[in-house]
């Protein structure tokens, strides 16, 4: 057991739990507060929250690990898509979705395409986000077992239940405010680690030389072109298709704040990937990749090798922070899907706010238990599992969202065909292992696009009211100052 690291981790988790409890009262004061923090988050908090929600454990552990194991261009391919997430989302959908006045992805599908599309979307969100809990829990289990000296299974269960509890208690208030801390810890931790590595290796040039001397293929493109392309696509679309990230957009006070938050969060993400290059080079210079059972542990080894115990403890807290905030945002999306979009919408329309919030809490606990059970024996490496979630959501939701916002001719039948066609194609490709890993959306997303366009064109056009609604999504063009 790493005593110093364990103490710091413990203090950190306790502090986060207290923050969660502190905001509980505020969160439960109204349903709107619970889901989107009362739309009163400012640019600064919003930027860190957005950054921390998107920068999942994969951004740190998976990216650095793959950069050492598969060559640093693979890490660059992560950033190639990931740094573009927020600009791409902002350009294509965030303003329009905001003007649509909805607060979850399935709500948008209902407004634009009706109940059938909404229900299918909820099912895909719930399944996708529950599966997305698995890599987060795997990563937290690896860190926890290393720091606490306990076995992986126990670590997954304890940490999983711990962060679920605080997320479920506080809703978006707790998540957003702890995100501010988590984002800062992660960023500063990566910065300090990068500085230590650069100092020990006397700057960039000799760091690269040291890395290449120990790991000769560190600078090479080792994988087929298609894997880099698939990875780029899956990450690029993540902000649009990930229900948890979209919800963040609504937590900002107004459209201007939302845009500025996204812009600054993009810079924070860029910095993380620049620090990631230094950390991966430091990892390659250690020459440990082949000695580890699990490549996802490379980052943990780098921290342990370069940092003194007290800083390593803070760094592990930062890593865990990234995992917690991502997992919390996912839990909130799952919970909103079941309790608001299905229960209140179709099962009990007159449900009180309290009962909806309470059901949301129970759903969060249930989803995290399912996630924990799968994570006890994870099916793949963290990076691959995250790639699957991104690729799957892109294949199902990417074009129904974008065409729904931009093309008034897109109709319900088209959206259903695109969503189901894309999701099924993706699942078939993954289960038959027909393509290189993570390359599935290269085929599945265009299938969804083609189906949606053709089916929309051969069926009846949407009602004039819906078409007028699509034009309203773009009202800033015709009514500046909106």
């Amino acid at each position, binding site marked *: 057991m790493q005593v110093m690291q364990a103490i710091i981790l413990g203090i950190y988790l306790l502090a986060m739990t207290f923050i969660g409890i502190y905001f509980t009262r505020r969160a439960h004061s109204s349903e709107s507060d619970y889901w989107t923090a009362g739309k009163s988050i400012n640019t600064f908090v919003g930027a860190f929250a957005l950054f921390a929600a998107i920068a999942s454990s994969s951004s740190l552990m998976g990216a650095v690990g793959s950069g050492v194991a598969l060559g640093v*261009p693979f890490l660059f391919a992560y950033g190639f898509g990931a740094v573009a997430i927020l600009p791409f989302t902002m350009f294509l959908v965030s303003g329009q979705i905001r003007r649509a006045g909805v607060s979850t992805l399935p709500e948008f599908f209902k407004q634009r395409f009706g109940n059938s599309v909404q229900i299918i979307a909820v099912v895909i969100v719930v399944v996708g986000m529950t599966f997305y809990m698995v890599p987060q829990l795997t990563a937290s289990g690896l860190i926890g077992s290393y720091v606490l000296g306990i076995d992986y299974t126990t670590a997954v269960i304890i940490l999983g239940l711990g962060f679920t509890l605080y997320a479920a208690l506080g809703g978006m208030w707790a998540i957003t405010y702890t995100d501010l801390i988590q984002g800062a810890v992660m960023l500063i931790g990566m910065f300090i680690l990068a500085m230590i590595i650069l100092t020990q290796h006397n700057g960039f040039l000799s760091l690269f030389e040291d890395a290449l001397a120990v790991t000769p293929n560190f600078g090479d493109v080792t994988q087929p072109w298609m894997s880099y392309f698939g990875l780029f696509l899956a990450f690029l679309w993540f902000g649009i298709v990930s229900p948890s990230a979209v919800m963040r957009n609504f937590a900002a006070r107004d459209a201007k704040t939302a845009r500025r938050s996204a812009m600054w969060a993009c810079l924070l993400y860029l910095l993380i990937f620049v620090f990631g290059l230094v950390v991966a080079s430091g990892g390659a210079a250690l020459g440990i990749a082949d000695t580890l059972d699990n490549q996802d542990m490379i980052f943990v080894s780098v921290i342990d090798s370069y940092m003194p115990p007290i800083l390593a403890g803070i760094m592990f807290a930062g890593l865990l922070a990234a995992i917690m905030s991502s997992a919390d945002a996912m839990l909130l999306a799952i919970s909103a899907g079941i309790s608001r979009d299905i229960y209140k919408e179709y099962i009990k329309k007159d449900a009180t706010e309290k009962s909806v919030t309470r059901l949301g809490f129970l759903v969060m606990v249930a989803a995290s238990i399912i996630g924990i059970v799968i994570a006890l024996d994870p099916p793949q490496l963290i990076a691959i599992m995250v790639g699957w979630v991104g690729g799957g959501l892109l294949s199902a939701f990417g074009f129904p969202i974008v065409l729904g916002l931009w093309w008034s001719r897109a109709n319900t039948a088209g959206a259903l065909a695109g969503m189901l066609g894309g999701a099924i194609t993706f699942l078939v490709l993954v289960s038959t292992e027909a393509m290189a890993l993570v390359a599935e959306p290269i085929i599945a997303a265009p299938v969804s696009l083609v189906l949606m366009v053709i089916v929309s064109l051969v069926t009846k056009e949407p009602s004039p009211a819906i078409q007028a609604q699509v034009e309203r999504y773009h009202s800033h063009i015709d009514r500046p100052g909106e």
Partner: protein
Amino acid sequence: MMNLHPIPKGEINMKTQTKSKLKDPGIILVSVLLLVAAIVLIWWPTDSYWLGISMAGWAMFFTYFIWFALAVIYVIWIERLEKQ
């Protein structure tokens, strides 16, 4: 059913708006983003190296800064549009 909504006027509006949608800063900047990504992926210079790292890798790395620049351009652009 269609009589309820005067067709010619509706069509003219729809066309004008569709045209203006294509001039939206978001669409223009997405086109730039996709163009840059396409250049990187088509160029794909795996065999030239700089500082021991493949140029294909560096090309992806330098797009980070382009992506952030595009985000800044968008924010300024939209805020100017709103001021007008």
